[in-house]
């Protein structure tokens, strides 16, 4: 049997399950307790698990992410929530210089089994300081895993393996997905997913649209439009941004031979650039057309609705990019 729930509910259920199953797990972040989470992911948790395990923090990302690292080193399994990726830049030193390096620099003696969750992306008119996508920066760093759950299944299933991982795992939840609904198995045990592979969300043969996170629904919408025009598009959801699933990317290229990479980061030095580079390195002779990218325009994300929409990847831009690969 299945049941229907939203991305938000799925993520909440995953955290609740982790808190119930493992006494070492606790949640920490701005407004996660009394307010129930900026996006209501932890509503009711304070009453259920108490202030020891659901900890409101001051507005001090550098401090509380560092505290999370210390707790992980000390044997706990912290879930640290950072309100948006923009604010996480304040904690970048802790994540990049401490969390990502300690196991390596200690010869494997000090793993940091920390999970950091943060909201990313634009589309909700939150203006430039709350709308950027920096997951590509994190995917640059060896020593951490970077996840981008884009489906209800992944929102529900990715947290458990992330907590079980000996390395820090950063989970990027796109703000445009929180109200998306989908089907899940009734039994929580059937929700397990891996955090190593990319997944084909729609099979096709003429073009591979490689994407992740908030752009997945847009890519699927574009694929639907393309199907009406007789172009069969495969949609590959990367799911894991570090380490990238090179085999799945190469397989999609070999199958479809035309590729459009869709990513809400900017093009310059972005994750899409990395994916294109890998395609050229590993699958050059499979290509039957130049590789195209649909990314955010190279501007700070605007506040005005029509400008924000124009700045972001959209289904029509994806359709146009795909058609550009055919004569």
């Amino acid at each position, binding site marked *: 049997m299945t049941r229907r729930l939203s991305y938000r509910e799925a993520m909440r259920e995953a955290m609740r399950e982790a808190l119930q199953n493992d006494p070492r797990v606790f949640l920490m972040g701005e407004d996660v307790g009394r307010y129930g989470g900026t996006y209501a992911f932890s509503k009711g948790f304070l009453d259920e698990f108490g202030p020891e395990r659901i900890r409101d923090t001051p507005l001090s990302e550098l401090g509380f992410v560092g505290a999370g690292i210390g707790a992980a080193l000390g044997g706990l399994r912290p879930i640290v929530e950072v309100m948006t990726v923009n604010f996480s830049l304040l904690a970048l030193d802790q994540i990049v210089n401490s969390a990502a390096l300690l196991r390596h620099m200690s010869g494997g003696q000090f793993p940091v089994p920390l999970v950091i969750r943060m909201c990313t992306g634009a589309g909700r008119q939150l203006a430039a300081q709350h709308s950027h996508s920096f997951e590509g920066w994190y995917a640059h760093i060896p020593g951490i895993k970077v996840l981008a759950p884009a489906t209800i299944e992944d929102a529900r299933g990715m947290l458990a393996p992330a907590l079980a991982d000996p390395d820090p795992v950063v989970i990027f939840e796109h703000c445009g997905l929180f109200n998306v609904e989908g089907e899940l198995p009734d039994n929580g045990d059937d929700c397990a997913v891996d955090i190593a592979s990319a997944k084909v969300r729609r099979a096709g043969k003429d073009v591979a649209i490689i994407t992740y996170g908030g752009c997945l629904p847009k890519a699927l919408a574009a694929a639907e439009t393309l199907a009406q025009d007789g172009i069969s598009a495969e949609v590959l959801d990367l799911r894991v941004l570090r380490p990238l699933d090179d085999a799945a990317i190469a397989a999609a290229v070999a199958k479809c*031979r035309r590729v459009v990479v869709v990513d809400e980061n900017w093009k310059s030095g972005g994750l899409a650039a990395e994916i294109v580079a890998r395609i050229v390195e590993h699958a*050059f002779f*499979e290509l*039957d*057309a130049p590789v195209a990218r649909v990314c955010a325009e190279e501007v700070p994300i605007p506040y005005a609705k029509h400008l924000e929409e124009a700045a972001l990847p959209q289904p029509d831009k994806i359709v146009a990019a795909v058609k*550009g690969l*055919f*004569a």
Partner: protein
Amino acid sequence: MIEFKLPSLGADMDEGTLLEWKVKPGDAVKKGQVIAVVDTAKAAVDVECWQEGRVHELVAAIGEKMPVGALMATLLAAGETAPRRLGAGEAAPAGPAAPPLRRLISPAARKHAQELGVELERIAGTGPHGAVTLEDVEKAAAVPAEPPAAPVPPPAAPAADKAAEMRKAIAAAMSRSKREIPHYYVAEDIPLARALAWLSAENARRPMADRLLPAALLLKAVARALQRYPELNGYWRDGGFVPGERINLGVAVSLRQGGLIAPALLDAAAKPLTQLMQELADLVQRTRTGSLKSSELNEATITVTNLGDQGSHGVFGVIYPPQVALVGFGRVAERPWVDADGGLKALPVVTASLAADHRVSDGHRGALFLRELAELLQHPEELNR
């Protein structure tokens, strides 16, 4: 670097096919020089370049069909040197890449062609920018090899196709005109006794080759009248009127195979009758043989249609967008005419009409323009200046 782009050769042209290059890389190009021949729906046109320089690269290929505005060639201005090729590690300029010159073959197609032993040279590409794709290779592999055909110039469109294309072009321009331009019409009968008498006397003392036709006189009078009514001479562009810098009379020339073209007599007001007559004869002849210049096709600021001896009494034309007026002349014929003293006479008379764009001018001004035209034609000797 000067970019030479395919100019628009009239409101009814949105693409052209390159037939011939008249220059090659390294050639010096003078302002106004014809550098290419482009086939449009209506005619093969000699395309002029209005910038001076040295040809750097011919981007468009013979036989290539291009939209108006497509990059055809690049020229180096005086003193400019060819840009250095980008070396490894250097950033390429941003923006969409120009269609490349060499033959494109996708990596997958090249690999597969090698596996199948298919010769890539005999495969036509259907991919982006005409690249040979995997599918092209597979299709070619399914067909037995034939000796490669010698490259042939693009075949001229058959006459029937050409006529159909011209009809389509006229249909598009005229539909647009009637859809967008609120026409108004005024007409005036103009006695030509004085003008024709002057013309006879003038022609009697000229050598045969220099003789003038009434059309030259009519055109000159239109050009002069337009000097006083500039709102009839120019274009409607982007929601407003843009006056023509000069008076370039588009002369409607009907073609023997059907259809018509209205190339321009440039700067008609400034030219003496003899020169105007020569240019008119030359223009009509070149229109009918299909060797017009691009400036003649896209610089007319108003159109004049002259039905001539075979025509009817009067004509009310359809404006050629983006122009804002059209002057029509019917057949010159003897008609009863009441002169200033109340006497009835038989005189040569022509009916002149004006179709004009009401967004730019009003009927009152249009009527005054025709009166001015009538007045000018009563003093033909003054038109010869």
